[in-house]
C-alpha cells in the first residue's frame, strides 16, 4: 500500500427513508476543517435509492464532490448490501480518511468495512485533528469515560472513525457552493445476501423506574406545585419519558421520594435529562451530570444547572414546557 495514493476526506452519508441524517452534516462540517488543513477535498459517499435530488444539499453543507451510489439494493440499510457497495467505492476512490456516524448503522457498517479493507477503525471519536505527519489523530473516551485516548492509524489507509451524533458542529449551509455529483455503480453479489428486512417499527420510548428511564423530565422549585408537575407529565407522555424531581419538591411534599434525583435520591444517567426550574445544587448535579444529554430551562441565567447543561434555555418553564409539549405532540403525530 502506498499512502500517497490515498487522498481526500470522505463522509459516509447516512439516510433513513431518504432523509439525510443530521450526523452526516456534522461530519461534513468536521471533514471540511480536516480537508482544509490537508489541502484536500471533502467527498460525500451517498448510498441509497432514488435520493439524487438531495445530493446537492451535501455540497451546500461542505462537500466538494458527491459520489452518488444509487441502487434498489440500498433502499434500506442491510449490512452486506451496504458493505459491498461501500467497499467497492472505497477501493475505487482511495480515500485517506473515511468518517461515519456512530449510529446503529455506522457502528454496524464501520467495523465490517474496516475488516474487509484490513484497516483500522476508531469508534465514537470525540475529537479529530491532523498531526504534523498529516495523519488523523482520533481521540475517544475509554474505560467508561474515565480516560481519553488519542489513536493513530499511520500505516494503513483509509483511516476510519465513527463519531456520535451531536459531537461535531455542522458548517454553515451555503446553497451557492459549487461541487460535482458523480455516479458510482457497484456490482452486487446477491449470493451473499443472507439477511432480509421483514419490518422496521418506530416506537415510543420510556419506562417507569427513573434509573431505567431513557428520558427524564425533572422538576424543581421553579415548577412550584402539582399543577406545574402536571405540565411536566404531559411533556413526558409525549416523548415517552418519566417525571422526576429535585429534593426541594420532595421535601415540600409535592413529589414522592422514589422519583428524587440527587445525592440523597437516585443517580440517573438517561439519554435525555430535562431539568425544568431546577437551579442545580451540587447534590443534585452529582445525581444527573452523567446523563448523555442535558437540557435545562431556568429563569436565572446564573443557575449552576447551566454549567452541566448541553442546551441551556433562560426562560419560564410554565410558558416553555406547554409550548414544547404541543409542538412535540404534533411532530410525533405526524410521524405515525
Amino acid at each position, binding site marked *: 500500500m502506498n499512502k500517497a495514493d490515498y487522498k481526500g476526506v470522505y463522509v459516509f452519508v447516512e439516510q433513513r427513508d431518504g432523509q439525510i441524517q443530521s450526523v452526516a452534516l456534522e461530519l461534513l462540517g468536521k471533514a471540511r476543517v480536516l480537508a482544509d488543513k490537508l489541502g484536500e477535498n471533502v467527498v460525500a459517499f451517498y448510498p441509497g435509492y432514488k435520493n439524487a435530488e438531495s445530493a446537492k444539499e451535501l455540497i451546500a453543507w461542505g462537500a466538494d464532490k458527491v459520489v452518488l451510489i444509487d441502487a434498489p439494493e440500498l433502499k434500506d440499510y442491510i*449490512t452486506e448490501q451496504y*458493505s459491498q457497495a461501500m467497499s467497492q467505492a472505497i477501493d475505487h476512490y482511495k480515500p485517506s480518511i473515511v468518517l461515519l456516524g456512530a*449510529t*446503529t448503522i455506522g*457502528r*454496524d457498517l*464501520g*467495523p*465490517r468495512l*474496516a*475488516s474487509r479493507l*484490513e*484497516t*483500522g*477503525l476508531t*469508534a*465514537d471519536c470525540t475529537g479529530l485533528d491532523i498531526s504534523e505527519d498529516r495523519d488523523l*489523530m482520533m481521540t475517544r*473516551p*475509554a*474505560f*467508561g469515560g*474515565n*480516560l*481519553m485516548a*488519542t*489513536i*493513530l*492509524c499511520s*500505516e*494503513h489507509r483509509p483511516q476510519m472513525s465513527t463519531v456520535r*451524533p451531536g459531537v461535531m458542529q455542522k458548517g454553515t449551509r451555503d446553497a451557492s457552493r459549487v461541487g460535482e455529483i458523480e455516479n458510482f455503480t457497484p456490482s452486487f453479489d446477491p449470493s451473499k445476501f*443472507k*439477511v*432480509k*428486512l*421483514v*419490518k*422496521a*417499527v*418506530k*416506537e415510543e420510548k420510556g419506562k417507569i423506574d427513573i434509573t431505567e428511564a431513557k428520558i427524564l423530565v425533572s422538576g424543581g422549585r421553579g415548577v412550584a406545585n402539582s399543577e406545574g408537575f402536571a405540565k411536566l407529565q404531559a411533556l413526558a407522555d409525549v*416523548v415517552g419519558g418519566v417525571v422526576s424531581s429535585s429534593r426541594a419538591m420532595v421535601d415540600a411534599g409535592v413529589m414522592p421520594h422514589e422519583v428524587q434525583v440527587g445525592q440523597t435520591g437516585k443517580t440517573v444517567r438517561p439519554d*435525555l435529562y430535562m431539568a425544568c426550574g431546577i437551579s442545580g445544587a451540587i447534590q443534585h448535579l452529582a445525581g444527573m451530570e452523567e446523563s448523555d*444529554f442535558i*437540557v435545562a430551562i431556568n429563569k436565572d*441565567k446564573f443557575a449552576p444547572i*447551566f454549567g*452541566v*447543561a448541553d*442546551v*441551556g*434555555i*433562560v*426562560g419560564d418553564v410554565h410558558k*416553555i414546557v406547554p*409550548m*414544547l409539549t404541543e*409542538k412535540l405532540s404534533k*411532530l410525533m403525530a405526524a410521524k405515525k
Partner: protein
Amino acid sequence: MNIIVCVKQVPDTTAVKIDPVKHTLIREGVPSIMNPDDKGGLELALELKDKVGAKVTVITMGPPQADLVLREALAMGADRAILLTDRAFAGADTLATSNALAGALKVLDYDLVITGRQAIDGDTAQVGPEMAEHLGLPQVSYVVDCEYNGENKFTVKKETEDGYEILEVEGPALFTVLASGYKARYMNVALIVDAFDKEVEIWPASKLDISPEKLGLKGSPTKVMKAFTKETKPAGQLYELEPEQAVDVIIEKLKEKFII
C-alpha cells in the same frame, strides 16, 4: 446446533476511580466481571440450548486469569470452554483481536456465533462485526430477541435508535447481543462444583488458523498515541430567546441526538 459465544473479562468500569493527583486509573481493588453484553449473549445461547438443543462453547482471549469468566459460563450451563492465551496476542486492537478469535473459530464447528454488542472497557462494538467479516458470515448487531425457525433460519429483533427491526437470517450467522435483551440466569449450584472440575482448554496462537503477523501489536493498524484523563465537561450553549424560538432550539437539538 453448535453455538460459540465469545466473552470478555473486563474491569467493572463503574468501580474504576481516577487518582486525583497523578490523573491515572486506579485499578487496584477493581473487580473483574464477565462483560454484561457478552453475558446477555451467553443467555441467548443457553435459551436456545434449552429450547431446541445445542452445544454451547464459550471462548475468550485474555491472560490466564480470564479462566474465571469461562468457569462462570460453565456454571451457567455452557458445555465447553476455550481460553486463547499467548504473549503473541498482547497489544491487540479490535482488528487483531477479531483475527485471533476468527482464527480459533476456523478450527471449530459452529452454526451460530454470538458476541456481546460491546465491552464496557472499550465500548467499540467492533470485534463482533470484524469477526463476521473474516468468517464470511452474515451479521446482525444490537440483537434483543431471537427465534430459531429450524433449518438454520433465525428471526431476530434488532434494536435501533427509534424502535426496532425484524430480520430473517439464514445461518450460519453472527449476532451481537444487548444485555438489555437477555437477563442472564444465575450460576447453578451443581454446575458451579462441576465448573471447577471441568477442563478449560488453553489454546496458544499456534493452534489458530491465522498468520502470526495478524495478531497482537503487529496485527493492529491502530496505535494509542497518548492517554489522558478527561477534562471536566464544558458548559453547553446558553440561549436567551423568546419562548417560541427556545422551543424550536430544543426540538432541533433533540432531533440531532435521535431522541425524538
